[in-house]
């Protein structure tokens, strides 16, 4: 039995957990890996033109796995914290893949909604395990192990690594050198993990900045508690988990003394970001942290993004010297 996990969207949040869970249940896990040109082209061709870039990429990743796996694991993650849900495109993701692409392998689409029942995540994994005809104790054991790995993954994120690097370190036991060096400028790159960490679509913004001698922090690098403690003065809570996190994380970064600049990375056609970006603007206009908003799509070029980043970095440096 081979289970396919597309290397996009939730991959950057839950992949370590999912991989360990399925491997403990003696199933082979195959992922589509890094985004390639071909995947982008496939996704752009097959997905609806009006869909956002990350969803198009997800289509491309799913197609890359088509003939390699027996089942695709695309859980319907509705709500994980009993408060906020995910973007409608995430809620309809399994259905979009099932009905939007021809000849796809069966999709495992367990529903996780913590507002419904207690231990919804555990229940969902139990259901998945039973679907694979495994016994309850085996599934429980696999779930416990997968949680341990996920914790390890979170610890690596807190120490400044980005999800893609942390995944590498968890599974390939690579001893990476620390990415945060003291005495350098620090930028916060805010945005959704599946945009920032997809090296192809984000034109590798994180490493580009690092090569310019800048420490990079993303919302994944701060603890959930500090995120939760931030308040933004929008009367209504953001509905979407990722957007809520980005908005609060931006608030957190803007209040830090050691953050020299904030870059908001968003994808073309992203629904929630149309509102998030405006809220960040309004929130930041009262603060003095330099801010840039960068929109990427399937046509973003290496040179264009590079030039804008360099210009931004130069301006921040000049401002710092002037002080």
């Amino acid at each position: 039995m081979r289970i396919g996990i597309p290397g996009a969207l939730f991959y950057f949040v839950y992949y370590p957990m999912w991989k360990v869970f399925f491997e403990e249940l003696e199933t082979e896990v195959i992922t589509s890996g890094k985004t390639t040109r071909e995947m982008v082209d496939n996704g752009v061709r097959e997905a609806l033109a009006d869909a956002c870039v990350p969803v198009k990429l997800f289509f491309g990743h799913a197609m890359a796995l088509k003939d390699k796996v027996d089942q695709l694991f695309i859980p319907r993650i509705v709500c994980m914290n009993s408060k906020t849900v995910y973007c409608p495109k995430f809620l309809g993701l399994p259905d979009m893949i099932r009905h939007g692409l021809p000849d796809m392998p069966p999709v495992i689409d367990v529903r996780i909604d913590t507002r419904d029942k207690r231990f919804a995540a555990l229940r969902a994994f139990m259901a998945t395990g039973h679907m694979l005809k495994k016994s309850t104790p085996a599934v429980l054991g696999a779930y416990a192990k997968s949680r341990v790995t996920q914790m390890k993954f979170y610890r690596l994120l807190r120490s400044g690594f980005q999800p893609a690097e942390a995944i590498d370190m968890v599974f390939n036991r690579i001893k990476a050198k620390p990415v945060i060096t003291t005495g350098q400028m620090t930028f916060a790159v805010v945005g959704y993990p599946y945009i920032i960490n997809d090296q192809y679509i984000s034109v590798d913004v994180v490493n580009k900045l690092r090569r310019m001698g800048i420490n990079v922090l993303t919302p994944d690098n701060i603890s959930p508690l500090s995120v939760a403690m931030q308040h933004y003065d929008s009367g209504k809570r953001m509905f979407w988990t990722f957007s809520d996190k980005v908005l609060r994380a931006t608030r957190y970064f803007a209040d830090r003394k050691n953050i020299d600049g904030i870059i908001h990375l968003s994808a073309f056609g992203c629904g929630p970001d149309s509102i998030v970006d405006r809220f960040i603007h309004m929130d930041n206009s009262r603060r003095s942290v330099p801010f840039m908003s960068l929109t990427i799509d399937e046509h973003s070029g290496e040179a264009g993004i590079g030039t804008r980043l360099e210009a931004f970095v130069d301006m921040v440096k000049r401002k710092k010297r002037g002080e």
Partner: protein
Amino acid sequence: MRKVSFPHMGESYRAFKMLLTDLGNEVVLPPRPSRRTLNLGVQHSPEFACFPLKIVMGNYLEVIDKGANLLVTSGGVGPCRAGLYAELHKKTLRELGHPVDIIVFEPPRLHPINFIRNVNRLNPARLSIKAIIECIKRGWRKLQALDNLEKISHIIRPEELHRGTTTRMYKKVLEWVDSAYTTNEIIEAEAAAVDEMNKIPRDHERLILNLGMVGEIYVLLEPASNLEIEEVLGNLGVRVERSMFLTGWTRDNTWKETTEGMTVKDAAHPYLPELIGGHGRDSIGHTILYAKRNFDGIVQLAPFTCIPEIVARTILNKVSHDYSIPVLTFFLDEQTGKAGMVTRLEAFVDLMRMKKMQAAKLKPA
């Protein structure tokens, strides 16, 4: 002096105006969205925000020009963006230097206190609860009358002998309902209007196509945003059945779900078992129901970048294939031109007509 206004959405403003005036408010009528509304809205909204947000923003700026300082709108609890619109509008308007207040009505089922407080704020005449309920009932009746007349115009227009008579008549009878005040007057005006509409000379021999219209509520309900698509289709000899009217939607979303709502949900279940916000699931469910009733085609209307409708559209491909019903989707925004839309509709109607005629020929007599 406090002046109240609200966003323009189809003909519903006639009922809202009456209700708010009864409660003792001075009402500024929102103008029908025009080029100017769009320009204003686009200028002050985020680029990727969906079309309704931009139109409503423009509408707000226009009524503020006329002196409105209290805006009434609906809220929402996600996951569709529309629930955050009021927040975004308020912040943007304040940033532009307009000291306006926005009253947001959340679904009363989930936020009963918010509902009562809002009603109280909109009641400077200090009417009793009984009187308020009376006013709401009358407003509701008017809304129903307006919806009924619109439905009838959709049925009659494709059969009219002289093009344009239905539209002219519809505009005329709307004024009758508009000037009716008591419940009895509204019922009488509605009956008279229906009679008058039925007198329009019709050609019953014509081959009429049945078309279901699904999609996002604002672009379905506001003719200025969908470039009067129903009129265009009617003139092409197509009887349009729209999946959504304001009264039906309000019933589904204020107190409890109706059986109609449940049927749509059940129909959509094999394709989309999850509520994805907005009207994504409704679009799929209604398409299936229309297909089962042997409709000739479906038109889906959605604002550009509308998240739930994008999900629905992706899945509708499969539905269209499974039920062999053609689906045409329009993603509308400020760039949509009427001529382009009409051309696409003409081609679509031609295809539907050919399919229908072929099927009729093949059928054993």
